[in-house]
Every structure is written in C-alpha cells, then in structure tokens.
C-alpha cells in the first residue's frame, strides 16, 4: 500500500479530496459532541423570587452528571439495556452464525430463497417493524397470542417481565438476516484448498465447522458483535412505539428515551446532554473493551 513520495505539485490533491467529507464530519460528529460536552457542564440558573428575576446559564462542572447518575429511573434504564445487551448480543451472534453455517453447509437446498427470506426484514424500518410486531403482541388482535390461548396457554408479551424480550425479538428479527448475509459472504471467501485439506484429513462436517469455518469467521463475527453492542445501547424506536400498548414501558425505559424526554418534554437540555455523553462513553467503553478482550485472546491463540 506504500505510495511513492508524491511530487510537490500534487501535495494539495489529497487534502482537496478529503476536505468536503472532513468538513461535514466536523459539522455532524465533532461539533455536536463538543457542544454536548459543553452543554453538559452548564445549567440554567434562575434569579429572584420564584425564579422570576430572569435566568442565565452558569458553569456547574459535573453536577448534571451526578444528577443523571443519581436518578434511579436513568440508572434502571442503563441496567436494563446492559441486561438486554448481555442476552441480545450472544443470541444475535449465535443465531446469525448458526443460520449462516446452515446456508453454507453441503446439505442446504434453496439457499438463494432462504437467504432472501432472512434478509427481507432489514428493509423494514425499525418503527414499522415495531408497529407490526405490536399488532402481533396485543391480545385480541394477535393471531399468535390468541392461538396460544386456544391451546390453553396464556402469554402476556407486554408485561413487566416479558416486554424487554419482546423488544429483543423485534431487534433480532430486523437485523439477524443482515448479519447472516455478511457471515455467508465471509464463508464464501474461504479458499477451496482449505476444505480439500480438511477432507483429506478425514475431518467430519462438524470438525470442518469448528476448525476451519469458525476461526475464519472471526473477523466478521467481531464486526457483527461490535455493531450489535452499539445498536443495542441506542434502543429507542422499539420501546417508544410499544409504549402505548404496554404499561410496563415508562418514559425512561432506555437511556435514549430518557435523554429524549429530558430534552423535549422537560426542556432540560443540560441533563439530556449529560445523558447523551454518558451513552456515547458507554458505547465507546463497551466496544473498545470488547475489541481489546478479543485481541488479547487472539494473541494467545
């Protein structure tokens, strides 16, 4: 990839190519982050009796952060998405890898059809998927819930203990097929000689999966995991859409929902900014933490 040292007259070309993107990146990424950090350490102070003397913005250091972190509803929402991630990430990765390996196995027929069927939900926006599944969760409308009741099983898919997993189902439904697509594409890059070698060694189908396919899937699995972690922390549209039909979902059900409500319902932009910064930090720490863990393990292997 090493390029020869460019001659002087060409020195400006790469900057010109990168500049438009960088400018917009600054506007849509760097500036908002900087502004969020700035907002998060400020607050509005009211003066005079009952605050009627006017207001001005003052520096409050980390007060908003300690407010956010001592707010039980916000803390519970963090615990909730962490629990959600702890279940959702392994389920998503295992399901996607399992389906990809099935599609890639010698016994599979109609691969083109199945792959398309799995991938279809990726084209359905999250809010529409949630409206859809909402109809499939509400008793009296849902053929699933009513069908179960006819069989004598009563299920409540929108209750306090279940609705989180009903949301997990929506997220899995939306994105698993996309992950399958990435993983199948990765499996197709495995050179035929490797399979040939495995066959000559007398490896069983399972041994081929274990010792040839899974290790080579590693990079794609890592990518899938990181994107699933980031996506999970952003949980917003699904609980928002299900809120009217489930009394278990409150306005601080996820950190994102909480920040949104602080900003647009309570007009508390400063607290909302602190919550947004905490969310971004959590995403960074978790995805980098995961990548570090993986690299350490990879070093031993």
């Amino acid at each position, binding site marked *: 990839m090493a390029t020869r040292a460019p001659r002087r007259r*060409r*020195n400006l070309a*790469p900057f010109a*190519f*990168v500049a438009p*993107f*960088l400018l*917009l*990146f600054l*506007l*849509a*990424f760097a*500036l*908002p*982050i900087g502004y*969020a950090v700035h*907002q998060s350490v400020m607050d509005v102070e009211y003066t005079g009796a009952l605050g009627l003397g006017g207001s001005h913005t003052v520096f409050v250091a980390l007060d908003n952060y300690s407010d956010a972190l001592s707010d039980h509803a916000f803390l519970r929402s963090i615990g909730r998405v962490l629990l959600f991630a702890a279940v959702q990430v392994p389920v998503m990765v295992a399901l996607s890898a399992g389906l990809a390996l*099935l599609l890639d*196995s*010698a*016994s*599979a*027929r*109609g*691969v083109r059809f*199945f792959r*398309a*069927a*799995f991938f*279809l*939900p*990726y*084209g359905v*926006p*999250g*809010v529409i998927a949630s*409206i859809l599944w909402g*109809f499939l969760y509400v008793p009296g409308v849902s053929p699933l819930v009513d069908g179960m009741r006819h069989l004598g099983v009563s299920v409540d898919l929108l209750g306090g203990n279940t609705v989180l997993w009903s949301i997990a189902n929506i997220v899995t*439904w939306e994105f*698993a097929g996309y992950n399958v*697509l990435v993983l199948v*594409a990765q*499996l197709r890059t495995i050179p035929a000689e490797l*399979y040939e070698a495995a*066959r000559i060694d007398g490896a069983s*189908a399972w041994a*081929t999966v274990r010792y040839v396919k899974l290790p080579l899937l590693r*990079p*794609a699995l890592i*990518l899938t995991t990181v994107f699933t972690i*980031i996506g999970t922390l*952003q949980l917003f549209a699904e609980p928002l859409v299900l809120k009217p039909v489930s009394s278990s979902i409150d306005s601080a059900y996820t950190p*994102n929902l909480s*920040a*949104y409500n602080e*900003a647009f319902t309570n007009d508390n932009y400063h607290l909302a*900014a602190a919550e*947004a910064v905490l969310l*971004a930090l959590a*995403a960074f720490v978790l995805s980098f933490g995961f990548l570090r863990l993986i690299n350490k393990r990879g070093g031993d292997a």
Partner: protein
Amino acid sequence: MSLHTPARTLPPSGETPASDDGTTPRGGITGVTARSRILVTGLLVAAAGYFLLPVYWLAVASTKSTGDLFGSFGLWFSHPRFLSNLREVVTYDDAIYLRWAANSLLYAGVGAAVATLLAAMSGYALAKFSFTGRDTIFNIVLGGVLIPATALALPMYLLFSKAGLANTYWAVLLPSFVSPFGVYLCRIYAAASIPDELLEAARIDGAGEVRIFTVVALRIMTPALVTIFLFQFVGIWNNYFLPLVMLSDSKLYPITLGLTSWQSFADRQPQLYQLTVGGAFVSVVPLMIAMVTLQRFWRSGLTEGSVKG
C-alpha cells in the same frame, strides 16, 4: 490494461450460479446423508417462517377494513379490499402520504448519493496518497463509526436550531451526507484494487488528479460504491430518531415519522389504524423488492470490510 482487478483480491460480486443455489456441495464434505439434508432444510424452513410471518401478516392486514383488522383471524383474509384501502392511504389528508414518500426518496436518494461520492473521494485519498495527518484522519473517522448516532442527534438539533437549520430539509440531509463506514470501506477497497502503477501511468500521460479520480478510480471502485450507496440509502430510509428530533412540520416528514404520527392519533380516530397498516405495507414492498434483487451488491464491499476489520 494489466489491472490487478478486484476479482483477484475480492470475491466476485456476482456468484457462480452453481454454488449459489446449493447444487454444488460446499464445505468439501461430499457424503451428504438424507438425514442431515432433512435436518438442515427443516431448520432453514423454520427460520424462514419466523422472518416471513410478520411480513405475511402485514400483507393480509393491509387488505382488511378497520373492523376486520381487530375482529377477524389475523393470518387469513376477510373481505379483502386492498384497492380501496390503498386509495384511502394515498388520498387521506390531501395526499400527505405521497408527500412523505417523496420526502423519504429525497432524503435517502440525495443523502446516499452525496455520502457515497464524499466517501469515495476521501477513501481514495486516504488509500492512495501519503500525506501528513493521514492516519490521524483515518483513526478519527473510525472512531466516528463507533459513536451512537442517537447520542449526536440531540446536540445537533440544538446547534441546527441556532443556525436556523432545524425543521428544514437540510436538517436531515446534512448529517446523511456523512458516512464514516463508507470512508472506511472505500479506503480498504481502493487500497486493494487500484494499482499505483496505473495512477503513475495516468500522471505521466498528463492527466490531472481530478480526471484520474473520476475516470480511473471511480470506475474501479464501483462495486464498493454500490454497496455504500445501498447501505446509506436503507440507513437513511429507516432512520427515525434524527427526523423525529429535527422536524416539527409534518410536510417535511419521511414515511417512518409520518406513519408513527398516524399511529399515535389512532386512539381518537380508529380509521388511522388501517391507514397505518396499509401505509406501512405500501412503503415496505418496494424497498424489500430492491433489497432482494440487489442482494449481491450488499456482499462484495462488506466482505472486504470485515476481512480487514
């Protein structure tokens, strides 16, 4: 031209039909037993049932009246009246649905096209030129991939409202022009597929940098660019949080926001339940057809990204 074509370093974007429909055994194990075939097919059918069931429900529900939506068995038809439902969806409230559809097309189409071009320019420059700050820029962009978009939307709204950009088309378009993941993919693809010798030869022939980029680089990078365009298009089309935060005028809404606004009024106006379901069906069908027919383009660029990731 003695190109080291992408085909050598990348999987071909079109697959050979033989391996694609599964008639050629993959995995190198030739002895496929009937039992394993039944097991694998059974699992695949079960999974397909899971992924297709809600779509089937939506198709059936879009043909029902509001009464039948709640009063008949969800998985079968009851007095189908799809066309009159469709007419209601597109004519309701001065055909606002069609306006939402046009908005979604505008946001996703223009947003994805500009994002792809900008990603191609920077990915190419980051891969094919060495200049001060190159690695710093690339690392910052990579960090951008890891930032949750929703954490950015709130502060961006505050900034945009100060600049008078909130509640305009630009509020949704400007952030859509930026695809850090696209830059990442383009850099990797350009590094692997554009030979330095070809660029040198073009320079010796006296071609300018812009011309080399548009004539040589863009052409070679096309498979990756199609992937990035599709990726960004669906991402913008499906986005909900950004337009929700930015837009208050329902004339600027994309379909996602419009349909949820119908749904939220349905308590008071039950007819809107049917409009929401019908509108969802109509909006989902073209995108699903596009996704399935363009499937192969999703793979070529992505594999390359994950190999090096």
